[in-house]
């Protein structure tokens, strides 16, 4: 299969474990993160946040705060009348709240002062009078309580969004099934917990233009939001995303502190910095949605799926954020792993008085993936099939279109399953009738479980509707031999700066460390939409290939003329351009640029990338399409202590279908990091709130919000499956998010295998395991988890004929019923 960029030539850079181009800076303390920026006369900003979960703002008294020496300016909601939000359909945030607050941590006022101490003192002198409103604390309340509404928009009451889609005749599919199984699951919310606290510095300089440095994954969207809210032309705003000290999706929204420091810099004429405290980072959140899920699946005796009906209920927290997309994502990717010929999805997102949820690594898909993979495990047991074998038998075929119109290209899941089955000695270890009796004693119990998953390599559609490329790269070659690559992408630790250098170096036959990489600066770099949806390697990579090939073409013409050989003879490698038939005949790379600049003038090229159009045309088809899908399979081996309920994950075997590794060492790092984050989610991480009406976060600190240390992290055995995808640069697919997905269900399935109890609620804490073991002892249903989902009215589903039914990707006209 040919892939972009390759042309069958041997690769000199791609596929090799080079250092990252920024590795030295990061290991010497020289990388400048946002809070490391210090400007002369810089003021410090502190933001007063609501201590009420839901209240009207009756009055704000700034007089005492303004009187404090060292205070330069204070802003409140009335300074920010224009709302913003990441999605065009949810422009529901104000930089500072105007009329009411919607969660504990909602920003109310902001101070710029001579230093952080004075800003803090002034913040505490601001007096806010609130009138409390009833709080909405759960999914159930969000569905049932119509008044008060947290927002005045959405699908009624406190329902933000309800969707209902049906692909093919699901009832017909259930009628064909030998077994229909229904299960209910809950996945608790959790947060990104990047090590770097969010920070932003703004400067309104002498030519009346605004510069914002910020730890953001999406400088382009921040740029747009600032222009809208501050009412100044986008051309007068420069957003520079500093290297992110971890993102994981938590720095993908435009944030209030970014808008606030910009405004304060405009008011005071001085640079202003705001660095959030760790507690504030918990309130920024935008993390994993808590999701309650119900699955109904029909299967034949051999485990082939005949129909699936998936319902999800999302606790969205207090704002829209990416929530509409998150809602669709909980129902989109069920179809790309195993063949699902008929599929129905219903999803509802509600507003609650909690920090807003949004995109965390895997955005909206770890929850349904956990539910689906545990559900399939239960089905395999009922059918007495090996769960690895059952999955392997019913894979979605490569180069096919799913029932919900997602176009699958390369599909390496079968190879992934084979590798983890072989590596873990699955066939030797796994049996449904675990001979160990799971009664309470001090003996620990071992178990093994498997799960699979898939993830997008970039969202097929941009966040705001447009026909422009999603990624642009600009290349400048200078007569001294220098190559500079410029791109709007943001390095959040995944190595995206390095990927640009590797790819340009490969195409131009130079060393990646010869290249200067300039990224994430809206004044200097062409737009790339940002580091989210696992889009960066695929999209910037393809744009970089195009820019570099265009530059190579100019050099080739000039060198061929100079050497007097046909242009097809010119090749680039080892910092030279030469005649492939006489490799000693050639010029240095720098000379090649001189020749080209002499012939054509200054050498600069651009490249861009737009994803292919999706075959889905129905309303809601925008979420799920991707140029390619990555695949992962994982086997977890656990040890469960029935006396304490403590689950120890000893080892995870994981295979990831990467298409082609641009740098395998970086791919390994992403796989291991994803396994780690999945492990934290399944065992301990949770955003939880005190069980009263106040909706107070239980533990907004790193000590109390449990995340795995070196002592909890398991051993990881990784396999990389390389099946190049025609849409990927050199065949590459994503790795930043996908490998997280199979980890939580693999562990849950292994816990069942160890002690015979199903924990249908994430995280699997010792308390839940013990409760389920007690149920088992009493001869009751040996599980812990939700038993039902709320009854709610769903909109009439959009009916879409599947490709197999001859559908064209559009919804069928609604049939009006006459009595």
């Amino acid at each position, binding site marked *: 299969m040919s892939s972009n960029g390759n042309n069958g030539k041997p690769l000199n850079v791609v596929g090799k474990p080079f*250092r*990252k181009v920024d*590795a030295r*800076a*990061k*290991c*010497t*303390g*020289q*990388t400048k*993160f946002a*809070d*490391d920026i*210090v400007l002369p006369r810089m003021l410090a900003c502190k933001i007063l946040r609501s201590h009420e979960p839901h209240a009207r703002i009756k009055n704000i008294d700034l007089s005492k705060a303004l009187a*404090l*020496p*060292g205070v330069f300016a204070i802003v409140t909601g009335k300074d920010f009348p224009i709302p913003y939000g990441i999605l065009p359909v949810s422009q529901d945030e104000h930089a500072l709240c105007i009329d009411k607050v919607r969660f504990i941590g909602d920003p109310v006022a902001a101070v710029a002062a*001579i*230093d952080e*101490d*004075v800003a803090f*003192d002034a913040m505490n002198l601001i007096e806010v009078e609130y009138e409390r409103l009833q709080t909405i604390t759960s999914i159930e309340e969000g569905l049932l309580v119509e008044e008060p509404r947290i927002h005045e928009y959405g699908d009624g009451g406190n329902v933000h969004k309800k969707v209902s889609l049906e692909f093919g005749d699901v009832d017909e599919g259930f009628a064909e099934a030998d077994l229909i199984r229904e299960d209910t699951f809950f996945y608790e919310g959790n947060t990104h917990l*990047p*090590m*770097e*606290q969010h920070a932003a510095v703004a400067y309104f300089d002498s030519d009346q233009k605004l510069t914002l440095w910020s730890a953001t994954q999406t400088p382009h969207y921040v740029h747009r939001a600032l222009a809208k809210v501050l009412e100044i032309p986008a051309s007068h705003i420069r957003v520079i995303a500093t*290297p*992110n*000290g*971890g*993102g*994981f999706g938590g720095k993908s929204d435009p944030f209030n502190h970014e808008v606030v420091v910009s405004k304060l810099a405009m008011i005071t004429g001085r640079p202003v910095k705001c660095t959030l*405290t*760790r507690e504030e980072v918990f309130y920024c959140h935008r993390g994993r949605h808590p999701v309650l899920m119900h699955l109904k699946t029909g299967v034949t005796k051999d485990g082939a799926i005949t129909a699936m009906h998936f319902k999800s209920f999302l606790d969205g927290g207090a704002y829209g954020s990416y929530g509409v997309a998150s809602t669709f994502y909980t129902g989109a990717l069920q179809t790309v792993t195993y063949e699902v010929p008929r599929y129905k999805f219903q999803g509802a997102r509600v507003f609650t008085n909690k920090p807003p949820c949004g995109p965390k690594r895997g955005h909206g898909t770890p929850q349904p993936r956990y539910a689906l993979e545990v559900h399939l495990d239960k089905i395999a047991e009922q059918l007495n099939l090996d769960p690895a074998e059952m999955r392997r038998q019913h894979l979605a075929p490569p180069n096919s279109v799913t029932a919900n119109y997602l176009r699958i290209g390369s599909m390496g899941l079968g*190879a992934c399953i084979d*590798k983890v089955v072989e*590596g873990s000695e699955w066939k030797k270890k796994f049996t449904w009738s675990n001979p160990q009796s799971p009664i309470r004693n001090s003996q620990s119990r071992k178990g093994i479980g498997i799960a699979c998953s898939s993830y997008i390599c970039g969202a097929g559609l941009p966040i705001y509707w447009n026909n422009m490329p999603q990624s642009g790269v600009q290349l400048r070659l200078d007569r001294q031999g220098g190559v500079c690559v410029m791109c709007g992408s943001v390095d959040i*630790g*995944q*190595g995206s700066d390095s990927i640009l250098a590797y790819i340009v170096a490969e195409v131009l036959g130079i060393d990646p460390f010869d290249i200067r990489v300039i990224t994430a600066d809206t004044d200097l770099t062409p737009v790339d939409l940002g580091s989210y949806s696992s889009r960066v390697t695929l999209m910037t990579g393809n744009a970089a290939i195009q820019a570099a090939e265009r530059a190579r073409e100019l050099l080739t013409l000039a060198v061929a003329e100079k050497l007097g050989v046909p242009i097809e003879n010119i090749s680039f490698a080892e910092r030279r351009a030469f005649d492939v038939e006489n490799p000693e005949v050639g010029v240095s790379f720098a000379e090649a640029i001189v020749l080209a600049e002499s012939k054509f003038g200054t050498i600069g090229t651009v490249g861009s990338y737009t994803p292919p159009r999706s075959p889905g045309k129905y309303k809601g088809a925008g979420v799920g399409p991707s140029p390619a899908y990555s695949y992962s399979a994982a086997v977890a081996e656990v040890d469960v202590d029935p006396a304490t309920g403590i689950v120890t994950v000893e080892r995870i075997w994981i295979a990831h279908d990467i298409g082609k590794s641009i740098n*395998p*060492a970086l791919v*390994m*790092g992403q*796989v*291991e*990091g994803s*396994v*780690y984050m999945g492990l934290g989610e399944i065992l301990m991480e949770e955003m939880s709130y005190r069980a009263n009406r106040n909706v107070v976060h239980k533990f907004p*600190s*790193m*000590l109390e919000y449990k*995340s795995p*240390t*070196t*002592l909890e*992290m398991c051993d990881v055995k*990784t*396999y*990389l499956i390389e099946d190049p995808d025609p849409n990927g640069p050199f065949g590459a697919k994503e790795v930043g998010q996908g490998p997280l997905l199979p980890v939580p269900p693999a562990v849950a399935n292994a816990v069942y295998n160890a002690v015979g109890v199903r924990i249908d609620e994430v995280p699997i804490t010792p308390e839940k395991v013990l409760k389920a073991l007690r149920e088992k002892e009493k001869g009751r249903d040996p599980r812990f988890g939700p038993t039902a989902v709320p009854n709610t009215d769903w909109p009439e589903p959009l009916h879409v004929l599947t490709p197999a039914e001859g559908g064209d990707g559009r919804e069928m006209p609604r049939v009006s019923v006459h009595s």
Partner: protein
Amino acid sequence: MQNGAKQKAHISFSLNGEACEVAFAPHKTLLEVLREDLALTGTKHGCELGECGTCTVLVDGKSILSCLMLGLDAAGRRVETIEGMAEGAQLHPLQETFADTGAAQCGYCSPGFMLVAKELLEKSAKPTRDEIKEALSGNLCRCTGYIKIYEAVELAAAKMRGEAMELPRESLFGIET
């Protein structure tokens, strides 16, 4: 001004092998003094509450959380930060191996990890994997799953012992398929 009226404290200490004098507001932590008064921003912060290990520096050779130590308490002591790890342009073996293995992804926690690892390797030339895990257990990293960090420490230890060692192929490419 309320704050400006406060008398600054003045201390002398050894910073990355050099004599250093600095004046600062007396309530400041060592973390703040390093970052704000000495412009050594290589020392990071993740919580400023002693929870995450990110701000680790070495004081008299021992790893401490600079967010929990007053700047005043550094008087007369020997403080080492990430900026002092390299010998001139020659990186410390840990810096080389953290860069080579990808142990630094976002790089934000890396200075703290490298300083704790330096303390470990000064005490123990050939630590076991379990000893490395134990030594690093007070430092959080959200990117790597710690595995590349263990490997970087093991490689650096070998380098410092003068032994040739390379990462197993499966660490960089996955298990041979």
